[in-house]
């Protein structure tokens, strides 16, 4: 390899994208070529600086929020067309011209009917793929009693992070909040033990998991 060929693969060399044979070739070349050695060190320095850019952690509830959004869209979809038609029909200019409005509304219905007939794949996607959020409730959620529900919830979020779990969903319940947590089996025991930091814990030996094996915790006000 000459200098130009080596310079072209210096990035690959530094990021483990080369075959063993090419790695040896680059090493041997750089050992005897000051210009390529200088380029290699400069590139290494640049990459080290570039790697300082670390995005902030994303929300532990992100995954659950995607599924919630999908569920919402799925349940809203059939109603949306009808709702939009009603909203359109109730616009003042159409009330003033009811016959014209009715005619256009009828046309929209015809177009939708034809569209659905011509696009069975889209329809199947919506109809056949089951809801991503099918929840079989936990029989006996873990109950944490505390004076400060939102403070305990903040602490719980930190505990979930510390034990490398993730929050699947949360919802308000009477007198508090229910939180569903996905936890790694190896870390589950320690995570459960750590819940005592949040308040007084009432936990049955079983029944605190939902149908997906997620831990369900209810934080209640004392």
């Amino acid at each position, binding site marked *: 390899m000459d200098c130009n060929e080596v310079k*072209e693969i210096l*990035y690959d060399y530094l*990021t483990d*994208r080369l075959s063993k044979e090419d790695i040896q070739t680059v090493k041997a070349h750089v050992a005897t070529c000051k210009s390529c050695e200088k380029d290699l060190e*400069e*590139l290494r*320095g*640049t*990459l080290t*600086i*570039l790697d*300082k*850019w*670390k*995005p*902030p952690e*994303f*929300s532990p509830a*992100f*995954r659950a*929020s*995607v*599924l919630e*959004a*999908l569920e919402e*869209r799925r349940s809203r979809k059939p109603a949306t067309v009808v709702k939009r038609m009603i909203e359109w029909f109730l616009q003042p200019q159409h009330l003033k011209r009811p016959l014209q409005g009715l005619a256009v509304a009828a046309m929209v219905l015809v177009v939708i009917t034809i569209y659905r007939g011509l696009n069975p*794949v*889209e329809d*199947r*996607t919506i109809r*056949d*793929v*089951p*809801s*991503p959020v*099918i929840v079989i409730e936990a029989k006996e959620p873990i109950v944490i009693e505390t004076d400060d529900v939102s403070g305990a919830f903040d602490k719980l979020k930190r505990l979930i992070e510390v034990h490398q779990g993730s929050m699947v969903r949360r919802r308000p319940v009477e007198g508090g909040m229910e939180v569903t947590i996905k936890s790694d089996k190896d870390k589950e025991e320690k995570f459960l033990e750590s819940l005592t930091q949040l308040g007084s814990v009432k936990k049955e030996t079983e029944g605190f998991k939902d149908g*997906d094996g997620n831990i369900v915790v209810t934080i209640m006000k004392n």
Partner: protein
Amino acid sequence: MEPADVERTTELVQRVKDGNARAFWDLLSIYEEMIYRFCYRKLYVKEAAEDAARGAFIKAFEKMGTLKDDSKFKPWLFSIARNVCMDELKRGKKFVELPEDDTMDAIPNGKANPEQALDHKQRMNVEGIVMEQVGKLSEKYKDVLLLVHYEGMSYEETAQVLNIPIGTVRSRLARGLETLRGRLEYLRS
């Protein structure tokens, strides 16, 4: 991406297509972090990046039936995420405005003007400077850098995401890195 990862992804995609929504959860767990990181580096704002990543996954779920080659899910998903981010950037609501300057002249050069460089260093930490300088690259160089360097994608996968030849991926990466080498030179000492 290792062959085993491609195999696992392909299997999950097929299961989602067969109506197994649980498999989509598993796909999410594999790709959520990298898609979020990519969106963040495009948009610079955590909340906007989460919105964009969420939007990308929703589109992917809804359009899964149109994915012809299941083994190409990863580049396909990144391509969707990139489009969502580009739409967001076009709307111009949620991203950080960077100074309009695409030349190296405005960047303090440690050798030529150490005082100015020191000032600049003091004003921003290294991470901030990297964000600023990567952000100043044009999108075509930035996309390649984000995918190849920050996400560790192969040249082939990157070419698929951006729908460009592999040779173009290599040349854009080299050009982007060369520009950054010059712009970040004063930090290397």
